């Protein structure tokens, strides 16, 4: 009671000082006296209606209402809006925020299209072995893509997605991280895994869904995953990985393990509700995460002009309270720099960071797509020829004296051979044994799955001629 009474004078002062009616209403709402009166009125009403209410209860009610501490009200000397959650000034201009009035968010770059450094201060001082490794991983990814794409055309694997045009984004960002940072990806990010040491055999085994696939033949091609390499298994439903990545980042923060989480996603996936949830959770829960958007201009056939009307994905960052940067996705050095800097911010400040890498999807969406149905072949050719991350990076390392035509020829032969050999090895391996389909639904097989597994195996054993048993490891092996 005392405290509330003591506050009353300042409450009146507040009213005297304030001319704005909203503020008056707010003071009224907060005022203990007003509340007390209200609770008495309420109690009175209850009695009027002749609802039996013991006196003791009524007293409790009043006491509780009186005891609730009133919020501290500062004197309103400075004429500033005080609405919760905003940092505004008053304005008397009736003016809408027109998105068109703002200049586009700039695109950070280190190199120009010729591979020349624009500002020497921005050149990351990467040593020769690192730069050569980056180039080799970018090109190896490219060779692997070509072989697996063709192999799908020939019906050897069921599906494939290439990374053409996005090699720099993947290798540049992977190199800017710590290899143990947890990566959540969409599906077009095999380069990250390749950087961390996933072998060609491992990629091929997954695409074939053979018995050596780490995913045990459960998923479609390109749904890679490796616990050892901190790369969470790909899931086809878009954007689902985004709030999950935030949860992992929160857990990492509490564990103080010195790692962050990176979450890759496309310009299309960013339209999903999960994307909003992820951005908002990460900011409000102070999570050490990098959101890495690969803005490649398309979501299957849908151009970004039909996906959003704001300034790309980057313009959303500030709205969520997330530090944000836009970067040239075909400039591998720039990608490296922003990822490294984003990692520092997110680890040191426990904050999310949003990177929007601008690029172009040179390949078809997947082997199920023919992009000539919705974009011109010339448009694609332009990007492939004029603004290719591999070509640009090669120019850079050539200028540095780390690479030349002779090395290129040698490496090309070697890389192609490696890819072809791994491919053939994977093709000759058996698919998992049939009953593998029942494993990993739960940690252990519940009774009903045990029963179904037996039913399946018994049936297949007595009707072997109807099943492709030769392609699979021996039944009963899993």
């Amino acid at each position, binding site marked *: 009671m005392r405290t509330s009474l003591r506050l009353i004078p300042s409450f009146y002062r507040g009213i005297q000082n304030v001319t704005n009616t909203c503020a008056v209403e707010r003071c009224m709402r907060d005022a203990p006296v007003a509340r007390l009166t209200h609770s008495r009125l309420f109690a009175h009403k209850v009695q009027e209606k002749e609802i039996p209410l013991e006196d003791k209860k009524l007293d409790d009610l009043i006491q509780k209402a009186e005891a609730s501490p009133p919020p501290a009200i500062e004197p309103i000397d400075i004429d500033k809006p005080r609405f919760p959650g905003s940092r505004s000034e008053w304005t008397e201009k009736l003016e809408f925020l027109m998105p068109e009035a703002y200049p586009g968010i700039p695109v950070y770059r280190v190199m120009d299209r010729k591979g020349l450094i624009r500002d020497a201060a921005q050149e990351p001082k990467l040593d020769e072995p690192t730069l050569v490794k980056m180039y080799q991983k970018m090109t190896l990814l490219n060779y692997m893509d070509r072989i697996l794409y063709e192999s799908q055309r020939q019906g050897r694997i069921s599906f494939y997605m290439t990374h053409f045009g996005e090699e720099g984004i993947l290798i540049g960002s992977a190199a800017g991280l710590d290899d143990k940072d947890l990566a959540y990806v969409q599906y077009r990010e095999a380069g990250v895994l390749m950087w961390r040491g996933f072998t060609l055999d491992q990629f091929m085994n997954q695409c074939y869904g053979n018995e050596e696939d780490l995913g045990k033949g459960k998923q*479609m091609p390109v749904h890679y995953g490796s616990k050892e390499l901190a790369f969470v298994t790909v899931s086809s439903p878009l954007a689902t990985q985004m709030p999950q990545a935030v949860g992992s980042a929160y857990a990492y923060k509490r564990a103080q393990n010195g790692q962050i989480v990176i979450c890759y996603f496309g310009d299309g996936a960013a339209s999903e509700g999960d994307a909003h949830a992820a951005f908002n959770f990460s900011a409000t829960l102070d999570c050490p995460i990098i959101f890495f958007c690969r803005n490649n201009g398309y979501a299957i056939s849908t151009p970004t002009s039909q996906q959003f009307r704001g300034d790309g994905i980057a313009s959303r960052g500030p709205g969520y309270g997330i530090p944000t940067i836009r970067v040239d996705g075909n400039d591998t050095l720039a990608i490296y720099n922003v990822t490294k800097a984003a990692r520092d911010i997110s680890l040191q400040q426990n904050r999310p960071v949003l990177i929007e890498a601008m690029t172009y999807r040179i390949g078809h969406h997947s082997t199920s797509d023919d992009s000539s149905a919705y974009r011109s072949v010339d448009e694609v050719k332009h990007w492939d020829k004029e603004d290719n991350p591999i070509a640009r990076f090669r120019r850079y390392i050539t200028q540095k004296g780390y690479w030349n035509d002779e090395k290129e020829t040698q490496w090309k032969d070697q890389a192609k051979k490696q890819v072809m050999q791994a491919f053939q090895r994977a093709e000759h391996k058996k698919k998992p044994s049939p009953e593998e389909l029942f494993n990993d639904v739960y940690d252990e097989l519940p009774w009903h799955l045990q029963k*179904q597994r037996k039913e399946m195996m018994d049936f297949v054993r007595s009707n072997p001629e109807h099943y492709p048993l030769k392609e699979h490891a021996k039944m009963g092996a899993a």
Partner: protein
Amino acid sequence: MIVKRGLRSVLYALRTDARYASTRFTFVPEVAPDEYGPTTKLNLFQSINSAMDVALSTDKTAIIFGEDVAFGGVFRATINLQEKYGKDRVFNTPLCEQGIAGFGIGVAAAGSTAIAEIQFADYIFPAFDQLVNEAAKYRYRSGDQFDSGSLTVRSPYGAVGHGALYHSQSPEAYFAHTAGLKVVIPRGPIQAKGLLLSCIRDKNPCVFFEPKILYRSAVENVPSGDYTVPLGKADILRKGTDVTVVGYGTQIHVLKEVADMAQEKLGVSCEVIDLQTILPWDAQAVCESVVKTGRLLVSHEAPLTNGFASEIASYVQKECFLNLEAPIERVCGWDTPFPHSMEAFYLPDKWRCLDAVKRLSKY
């Protein structure tokens, strides 16, 4: 770095489907009733396209929207419709299924006709809240002041031979558990066109699952005009005396083959019933058949536990208890996610179904 395409086909993957489909079942074209008028040879995606063409030409408020529908959709079902009806009637949405469903409900609540596409049934779950809590309950919760009856959600569903977890699912049971929705699944082009037009014109929100394996592999002479096939009515495809065999969608083709094999190998006569509408389902047709045969097999690709076959089985055992000569058989997908490399062992194929017919007849 562009890989040259050896093949022209827009959806090469579906060629593999056709190859695969031929081992799993044989699609036998049906003949449309004469009264439906002149026909054109169309596959399933073309007949769906034809239904939407009719819908847009007969209803000026009707619009079509979804991911990638403007250029024809990833399965080509909306091809040429934007050219024909304009960008304000056939258009791409941002990539957001909950948005598509919610937007469609709003279009319907405002009195227009909404035809929404969800690119794969596997991706309908972000829209689940809008469909289950909103579309399905719009009429009930408003005392019939508002409804979303002119919403139809189309979505490709089911196994294709290599779709694995997220391009193969049959989620009909989730929706069949929702009062207020109608759930419809066609088996072929002629029927699909009539059923889709019924859904679009029905006064209740409908979920229409299209068996994507049939998009190209199922070809029939489809009536070019406007016709409907009634919802809530089963279709008795083959008369029989010994075992009633119930299914819908792709599985119907498996079951028709099973009926042939049962006749040939076991001398058992199967009555094959296509439910067509899963909710509300035609219990009368099924029960009348079971009263006659005394034996029932229900089969679907979706997992066994809580699949729609469970509902049919429990209803029939109550209604036809004294007529049953054998325990009702369900042959379904196993209770696992849909596997990639092991798909052949997952599916309720004709051999497993035939085995169930054998058990039923020998009981």
